[in-house]
């Protein structure tokens, strides 16, 4: 259960950002990618998988955990705060693709920073459910905003994804970010998560 819903979501995001674009563009490589909410459950696994796939990963986070994100494979760490402002319709093209786990202004800025034909896989709303963007990234750069959910994935695809993700994740490394909590502790931790005060994966041992 080290992966769970977060792992299922992260592998879908990574496949979308990297492999889907490479297929659409007949093999043109996806190199530079950004992962937002990189210290979170989905974000940290996405950083690990995309790095393993050979991408040059930039990790955006609010947390002071540069060393940990670098251990997962991130090459560059940036502060999420720098992206949490009203987005320009188009900004400097920096990334071939992105995984966004937070939504809001950060996602809007990511869309403006993605290079032509990049795919942004969006799967979260920890920052905001709102998205204040323009049509410009889509019509000028052909940027693609690709929604990812972990709810309605067929069993056939789930079995495939579990197989793939287990090849791409370093479980010993992932384990370092995992906190095992009881049902009682869960009643405390969930509100910290809503306040943005948690990082990494939380596994609930229901028999603890």
């Amino acid at each position, binding site marked *: *259960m080290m992966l769970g819903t977060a792992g299922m979501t992260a592998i879908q995001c990574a496949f979308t950002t990297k492999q889907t674009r490479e297929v659409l563009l007949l093999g043109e490589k996806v190199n530079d990618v950004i992962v937002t909410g990189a210290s979170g459950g989905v974000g940290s696994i996405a950083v690990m998988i995309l790095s393993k796939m050979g991408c040059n990963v930039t990790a955006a986070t609010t947390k002071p955990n540069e060393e940990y994100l670098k251990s997962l494979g991130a090459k560059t760490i940036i502060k999420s705060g720098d992206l949490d402002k009203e987005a320009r319709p188009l900004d400097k093209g920096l990334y071939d693709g992105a995984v966004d786990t937070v939504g809001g202004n950060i996602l809007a800025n990511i869309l403006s920073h993605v290079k032509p034909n990049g795919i942004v896989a969006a799967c979260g709303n920890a920052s905001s459910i709102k998205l204040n963007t323009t049509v410009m990234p889509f019509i000028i750069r052909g940027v693609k905003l690709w929604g990812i959910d972990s*709810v309605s994935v067929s069993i056939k695809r789930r079995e495939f994804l579990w197989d793939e993700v287990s090849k791409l994740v370093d479980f010993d490394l992932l384990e370092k970010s995992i906190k095992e909590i009881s049902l009682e502790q869960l009643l405390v931790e969930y509100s910290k998560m*809503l306040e943005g005060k948690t990082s990494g994966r939380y596994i609930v041992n229901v028999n603890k």
Partner: protein
Amino acid sequence: MSDNFKALIVNQEGEKFLREIKTIEKSFLKHGDVLVKVDYSTLNFKDALILKNGARLVKEFPHIPGIDFSGTVVESKSEKFKEGDEIIQTGWRVGEIYFGGYSQFAKVNSNFLVKKT
């Protein structure tokens, strides 16, 4: 299995949203054709939203949240699973419209489960 076990239950009583760890009976579980002894669930952002106030995702109360879990099958009415199978459950709105993994036992639709290999 013993008839009583522990689960985190959320409930809505008027304006109040309650979260409690309770001892419940197997008969409390109402969905699905496979009974699973749960080992682990996880805490995801969606879980946190549900634990706060149901997040408009939970339609009926009382409810057991927890959008994923892993464990071992203890009873199955489905031909696809048998006692002792290790499974993993994610998605399909388990923990939202169906009871989830914050429970020592969970009943789930066999069409949702993936066998661990």
